[in-house]
């Protein structure tokens, strides 16, 4: 049985001839239409991680706080006091490029479901976004405006605060925007639940919204292919989200878990019923029967394959013991959530789809979930430059003051207030540090301690040097946490890359994963989960290789959470850490028209670790008045940001490169001289109304603030 | 019977959506457009059309800030 189907329908669904041959071999027959559709999704890049799974094994996943590692709906760490924190980051890049409002909104909806699927109440969202240059591209302004509106719409409506995030603008993202959404959730440890289906004879129930034609074929059609001409025709595949519906579903699921009524829980996301049911069965080493005739539908005349791959939002699957089904229905009725028994767990490890008693699909779970071929990457370092330099905005002859102002006004550094003002950061009353108050968001826990979280990733620097750039993302994220006094507990990552079948992208991916692994090992931070988004590429080329890193940490005393702004006249300002700035990959190099060209300078991991520990401890002690890590724009920008946040000036002496960067290695920290001089080198004092670097620049704080505040609005107008 | 209710902001109430659309049209090459207002369409099948005005007054529109127009007997198959 080695001939491919004459109609090559498998190719239309995104399966290669090799993959189709493998299916024929494993099944020992041809697959039915429904089965083929199921394979096309389960064996897509998006679901099976064909090109990345082998590589991801390199990442360290062990840690003493880890309660659930990679493989579940979200990673979970212990945060003390009997509480667990679940968190994960996911991408929704391709749908957002086609329909940014709904793409971004449903991205948030999806990550929220992943978190409450493990039994945690979502308590915060962060978003990491990438677009083309706003000053040059009307399309990028449009995508930004609508993606932000979509994130706000979903997060605000469902009552989960958006507490942080980042946005980068680079022409490399012009054709392929990146929308990565991260969610944190809190649960008493006893309420945590896994997705493995258990108990042959138990009932499979579908909760939530009606099933329609949303996103049919979305997973394989959109996420595993490069975006080309004629994207309008892909519009019907985009999912539409309803946060009101998800709010009811969330409260309902948490109550069902509090009452101990569920044996397992899984959310429905990419590839809908097919992936959820097969993954539940695979993890539980059982089988599942689904009767599509019992699935409540929104549209008439839906075929079995459509029902099995629909990506209609706001739905969950659960397994319930037969004697508990009545109670489950009562709770669901109270919350106005539709609950329908649609199948059962079986002993035999097969996924069977039935319609009115007729079997329309009957597949061994292993073949669907485990037998997808995994491909080795064939990495080759590129000999030529892949990326165009940005349009030069500066000539290099500007004064240092002019350079500082240009950086503060630039798209990647200017204040994000016009964006984050569209998000509610305070609902649920836990937020101790709001956006721009500190380098990381801080959320109070019952009992007096707090959680800190940041999301970071600089694609330009990774483009210069994938291994070192990826490591820097981890170091910088951990540095952000240190500035509020937190020690890292766990990391989630989203790997956004181009087409991995191309050797230079395969090289970027391989190097980046190695860099992430090295940095995580150096800091002792385990990876507890994440996401991969490949094929972010247009005819003009791939995006910058963009690993996005989210780290969650804990600080013992919420009242001692660090701040960003300079505090008091007379405070000593210190430069902390082995900070060796370089122009390679910096924002200034970009503004001067330099292409991303590596390598990045090496960084001593032990020095990074020591500085991180020292700053975190100093902040926690309450003795420091503020701390801010040095990132894009270098020391000058960091000092300016501290002045603006504190509405107070500073006078500093510094001989080195004011605009060079070395993420994760250096901090500005101020407070009493005795404290600061023990931590780092004293370089000046807080006070007055101007930022002065003696002999080099002298700018009023109000001018710094105005420039920074208006930067983004000016570009978006 | 199939009915349609059109709800629009009252004259004199600031309508930022309408203004935004009115400003956007010339940028796309459409000139000579003014007086743009954005409202809502509600379609429903009713057995007793005499109930429609009360439905509008009590729920479908907010009479303080909105006007409404009832269109009765919309033909089956009429453009949606």
């Amino acid at each position, binding site marked *: 049985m080695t001939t491919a189907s004459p109609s090559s329908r498998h190719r239309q669904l995104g399966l290669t001839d090799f993959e189709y041959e493998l299916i024929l071999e494993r099944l020992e027959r041809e697959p039915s239409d429904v089965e083929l559709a199921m394979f096309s999704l389960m064996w897509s890049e998006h679901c099976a991680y064909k090109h990345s799974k082998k590589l991801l094994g390199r990442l360290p996943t062990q840690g003493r706080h880890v309660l659930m590692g990679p493989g579940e709906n979200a990673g979970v760490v212990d945060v003390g006091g009997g509480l667990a924190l679940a968190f994960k980051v996911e991408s929704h890049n391709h749908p957002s490029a086609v329909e940014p409002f709904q793409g971004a909104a449903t991205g948030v909806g999806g990550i929220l479901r992943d978190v409450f699927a493990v039994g945690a109440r979502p308590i915060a969202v962060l978003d990491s976004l990438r677009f083309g240059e706003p000053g040059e591209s009307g399309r990028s302004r449009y995508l930004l405006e609508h993606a932000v509106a979509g994130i706000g719409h979903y997060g605000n*409506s469902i009552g989960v605060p958006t507490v942080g995030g980042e946005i980068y603008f680079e022409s490399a993202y012009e054709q392929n925007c990146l929308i990565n959404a991260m969610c944190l959730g809190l649960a008493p440890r006893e309420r945590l639940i896994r997705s493995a289906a258990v108990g042959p004879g138990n009932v499979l129930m579908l909760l939530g919204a009606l099933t329609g034609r949303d996103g049919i074929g979305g997973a394989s059609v959109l996420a595993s292919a490069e975006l080309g001409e004629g994207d309008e025709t892909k519009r019907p595949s985009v999912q539409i989200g309803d946060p009101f519906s998800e709010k009811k579903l969330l409260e309902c699921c948490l109550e069902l878990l509090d009452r101990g009524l569920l044996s397992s829980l899984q959310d429905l996301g990419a590839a809908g019923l097919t992936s959820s049911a097969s993954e539940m069965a695979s993890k539980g080493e059982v089988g599942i029967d689904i009767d599509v005739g019992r699935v409540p539908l929104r549209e008439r005349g839906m075929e079995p394959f459509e029902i099995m791959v629909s990506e209609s939002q706001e739905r969950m699957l659960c397994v319930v013991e037969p004697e508990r089904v009545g109670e489950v229905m009562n709770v669901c009725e109270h919350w106005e959530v539709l609950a329908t028994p649609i199948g059962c767990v079986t002993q035999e490890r097969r996924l069977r789809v039935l319609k009115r008693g007729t079997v329309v699909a009957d597949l061994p779970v292993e073949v669907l979930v485990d037998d997808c071929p995994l491909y080795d990457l064939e990495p080759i370092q590129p000999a030529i430059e892949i990326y165009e330099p940005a349009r030069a905005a500066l000539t290099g002859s500007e004064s240092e003051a002019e350079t500082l102002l240009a950086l503060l006004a630039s798209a990647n550094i200017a204040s994000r207030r016009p964006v984050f003002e*569209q998000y509610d950061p305070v609902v649920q009353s836990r937020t101790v540090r709001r956006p721009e108050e500190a380098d990381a968001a801080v959320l109070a826990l019952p009992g007096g301690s707090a959680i800190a979280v940041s999301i970071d990733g600089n694609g330009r620097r990774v483009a210069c040097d994938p291994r070192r750039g990826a490591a820097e993302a981890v170091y910088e994220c951990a540095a952000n946490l240190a500035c509020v006094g937190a020690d890292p507990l766990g990391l989630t990552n989203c790997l956004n890359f181009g087409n991995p079948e191309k050797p230079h992208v395969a090289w970027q991916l391989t190097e980046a994963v190695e860099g992430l692994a090295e940095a995580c090992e150096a800091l002792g931070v385990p990876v507890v989960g994440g996401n991969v988004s490949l094929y972010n590429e247009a005819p003009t080329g791939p995006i910058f290789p963009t690993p996005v890193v989210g780290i969650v940490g804990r600080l013992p005393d919420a009242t001692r959470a660090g701040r960003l702004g300079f505090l008091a006249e007379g405070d000593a300002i210190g430069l902390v850490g082995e900070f060796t700035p370089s122009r390679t990959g910096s924002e200034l190099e970009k503004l001067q028209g330099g292409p991303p060209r590596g390598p990045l300078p090496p960084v001593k991991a032990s020095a990074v670790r020591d500085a991180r520990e020292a700053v975190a401890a100093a902040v926690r002690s309450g003795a420091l008045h503020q701390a801010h890590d040095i990132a894009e724009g270098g020391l000058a920008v960091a000092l300016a940001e501290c002045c603006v946040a504190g509405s107070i000036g500073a006078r500093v002496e510094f001989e080195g490169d004011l605009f060079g960067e070395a993420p994760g290695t250096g901090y500005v920290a101020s407070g009493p001289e005795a404290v600061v001089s023990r931590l780092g080198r004293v370089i000046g004092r807080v006070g007055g109304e101007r930022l002065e670097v003696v002999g080099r620049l002298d700018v009023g704080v109000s001018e710094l603030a105005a420039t920074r505040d208006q930067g983004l609005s000016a570009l978006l107008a | 019977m199939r009915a349609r209710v059109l709800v629009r902001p009252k004259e004199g109430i600031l309508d930022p959506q309408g203004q935004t659309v009115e400003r956007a049209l010339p940028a796309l090459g459409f000139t000579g457009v003014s007086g743009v207002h954005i409202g809502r369409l509600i379609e429903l099948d009713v057995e007793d059309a005499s109930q429609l005005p009360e439905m509008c007054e009590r729920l479908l529109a907010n009479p303080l800030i909105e006007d409404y127009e009832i269109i009765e007997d919309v033909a089956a198959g009429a453009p949606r």
Partner: protein
Amino acid sequence: MKFGVVRFPGSCDEVDALGAAQRVGDAVLLWHADRDLQGVDAVIVPGGFSYGDYLRAGAIARFAPVMEEVAEFAREGGLVLGICNGFQVLCEAGLLPGALLPNPSLKFVFRQVGLEVVDSDTAFTRAAQPGQRLSIPVKHTTGRYFTPGPVHVVLRYAPGENPNGSQDDIAGVCNEAGNVFGLMPHPEHAVDALTGSTDGLRIFESMRASVDDRVAV
């Protein structure tokens, strides 16, 4: 003193309002489908997106069974506080004059704003001084207050701080009888120094003082 905080499907800030009220007295949740107000001394209709803001913000919530009881409670002089979406519900229900319209920017706005106490003689502001500045956050898409007729203004946005184009910078109003008060800013998010300002406590403290007076009489 017992507060009752209404919970509709889609309410978000009801738990926050419950927490704020509990700093000042006892508080219970009132489920939208129940008619039992559980003998509370004051009702809070909270912020959020009741019924998804479908049709118009607050338009559907006003018909919930609990709201019929709240309307009766208000007619009998009971204290009713409407916050943000709650303010929208009270206007839709006719318990307060006017309506809330979309922000001119058509965007959701979160901002910590300065408010001025215009009338410190009400049951909701007596714990504040006349003209006192209160720092309280707003977070809404549909907060532009409009009324064609006269209205009893209780709070205004401080000069330059109106976030939504409200007529006459109006942030909060009460009914003629003075027992129903609606405002767009969220006092329940200004009760804890750890997470922001504590100016919002004045409103809850005022309500408790008013109820205490009645009990005393």
